[in-house]
């Protein structure tokens, strides 16, 4: 042992420290891969949701008026419509919404959709659009003479409020959003009371020594890990087929019930956790005043656990919102353009639309799929933000 031992590290120790540094770097890089993946994923989706397009018009806007269409007044626009549209078509439109009642923007859209009818010949990603404009112009002039190059964001207001269509230029997702909304509502109405009820039973009534209760608990935990497509098969067999007379087959109600079964285990587990967090002293205080078990639960346990239960519910709902596979089985149809109007309507939802558009080979369908993905992710982020806010308020109160 020399005095310098503390400072002069042996080669062995130096090697150990070097290994330590390497290990740390590896662990750190592995962690950041998640971050990198997330960024790449989001960028690649944004990249495909907007960019330059080569369009060809059925009727050149220049032949309609000598001023650019965007600068025209309402009167001029309706004049174009009355002149150019087939009388039968004009009548149909007038029957729904008289031209006189439409705003300038609505009239402009109508002119674009009904008369100009832009057809996207080819679309480019955002990165190509920004950095390879010359190449795009060359392609346009060589392969699509007479076509125009314009910038197009595939996410736009018309996309959100428009109904489904076979041509990606005018397709919108309103029908799919409405479908999601209907299904989520059914899911909540069915799964919330049953889920919370089951959680109360397991946490407050069930004695863990009883065999049946243990089976229920284990069963719920296992159900939470069953692949969602299996729930789809179940939904197909039970709600679509066996109960087909009641549900009328591939309808909103079948889908909602399937989703309810799917999220039930997660919802129960979340709710159980929230109920378990209620301090026992609260229950004892209530019993001490002569309250019955249900009075204790209803007046003390549930109010205390509610924010936690709601947080868990929102998280399960957001899971249901993004689910695709079970709804393929239950029979979402991607070719409808009527909004669901009752429990027995046929339906489509946002993820199904994304699936369907993505599996088409044309670029323009990929573009609207990307746009739909952005809407989907924004919705989910909003839901999660609400859940986090709830959770934070909850944890502050305690």
């Amino acid at each position: 042992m020399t005095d310098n031992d503390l400072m002069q590290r042996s080669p062995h120790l130096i090697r150990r420290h070097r290994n330590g540094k390497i290990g740390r770097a590896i662990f750190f890089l592995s962690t950041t891969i998640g971050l990198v993946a997330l960024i790449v994923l989001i960028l690649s989706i944004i990249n495909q949701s907007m960019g330059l397009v080569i369009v060809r018009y059925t009727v050149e806007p220049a032949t309609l008026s000598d001023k650019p269409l965007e600068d025209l007044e309402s009167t001029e626009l309706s004049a174009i419509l009355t002149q150019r549209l087939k009388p039968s078509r004009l009548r149909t439109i007038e029957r729904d919404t008289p031209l006189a009642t439409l705003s300038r923007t609505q009239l402009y859209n109508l002119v674009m959709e009904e008369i100009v009818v832009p057809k996207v010949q080819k679309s480019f990603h955002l990165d190509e659009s920004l950095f390879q404009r010359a190449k795009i112009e060359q392609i346009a002039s060589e392969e699509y003479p007479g076509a125009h190059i314009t910038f197009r964001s595939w996410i736009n207001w018309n996309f959100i409020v428009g109904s489904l269509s076979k041509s990606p230029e005018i397709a919108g997702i309103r029908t799919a959003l409405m479908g999601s909304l209907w299904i989520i509502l059914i899911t909540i109405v069915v799964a919330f009371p049953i889920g919370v009820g089951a959680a109360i039973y397991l946490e407050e009534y069930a004695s863990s020594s009883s065999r049946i209760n243990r089976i229920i608990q284990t069963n719920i935990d296992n159900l939470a890990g069953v692949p969602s497509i299996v729930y789809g098969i179940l939904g197909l067999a039970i709600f679509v087929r066996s109960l087909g007379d009641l549900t009328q087959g591939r309808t909103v109600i079948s889908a909602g019930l399937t989703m309810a079964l799917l999220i039930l285990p997660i919802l129960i587990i979340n709710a159980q956790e929230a109920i378990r967090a209620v301090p026992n002293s609260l229950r004892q205080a209530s019993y001490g005043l002569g309250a019955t078990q249900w009075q204790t639960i209803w007046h003390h346990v549930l109010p205390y656990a509610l924010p936690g239960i709601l947080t868990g519910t929102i998280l399960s709902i957001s899971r249901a919102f993004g689910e695709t596979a079970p709804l393929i089985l239950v029979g979402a149809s991607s070719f409808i353009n009527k909004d669901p109007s009752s429990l027995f309507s046929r339906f489509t939802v946002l993820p199904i639309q994304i699936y369907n558009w993505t599996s088409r080979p044309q670029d323009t369908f990929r573009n609207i799929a990307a746009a739909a993905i952005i809407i989907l992710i924004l919705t989910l982020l909003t839901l999660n933000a609400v859940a986090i806010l709830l959770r934070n308020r909850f944890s502050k109160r305690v």
Partner: protein
Amino acid sequence: MTETPFPNNAYAIELRNVDIFYGNFRAVKDINLQIEPRKITAIIGPSGCGKSTVIRCFNRMNDLVPSAHLNGEILFHGKNIYDPDVDPVQVRRLIGMVFQKPNPFPKSIYENIAWGARVNGYRGNMDDLVEQSLRQAALWDEVKDTLKKSALALSGGQQQRLCIARTLAVRPEIILMDEPCSALDPIATLKIEDLMRELSTQYTIIIVTHNMQQAARASDFTAFFTMDTDRAGIMVEYGPTSQIFTRPKDKRTEDYITGRFG
């Protein structure tokens, strides 16, 4: 290794004007303490006065608490172990530690002892080292047939002796013990005290204890700590154990050891 006399310094380790902070809170202040080599030094004092804080700074265990930092010097072989060029890993190899609750690794008895030596680059015969360490810790006879069994199957007292054996296998100079007997029954406690006596012929031992009799029985020197008015720990008195327990110089020490304190 411990055969070499200390050339620069007569003490095994020495604290000079040490203050230790957790964030802004000063947990102990202005400690000056010289530890005699190959003796047992006990640190006693009321709960929260900073005994653990101090003993954990002897081998830089406090580095693991992000908010902790230290002013002053801790001299080991004439070198301040808190100097930036000092490697805490090397410090901890030379100054081992036994904790309040026995904390064997969830591995076999054999592996518990071999592991520390192995990571520290021990090249000799491992079986011999294991046997020797277990013998030193007076545990060999009890476990020699079950070396491959899990260490978690041992009793608390055996586990604690295993932890001591494990520390010995790394061949430290100083062994720190923070209330090593607080989780043990009186018989196991006595065994550990005997063991400490045995080890003090070769090792410097510093022990934190709440047990007055233990300090009186088992230590050569005693340092008494208490809390100052600002809740910072201070060292009140330090000297040979016989003197501290029979003729304390300070009123506060007397009150504490006669049980009139808190």
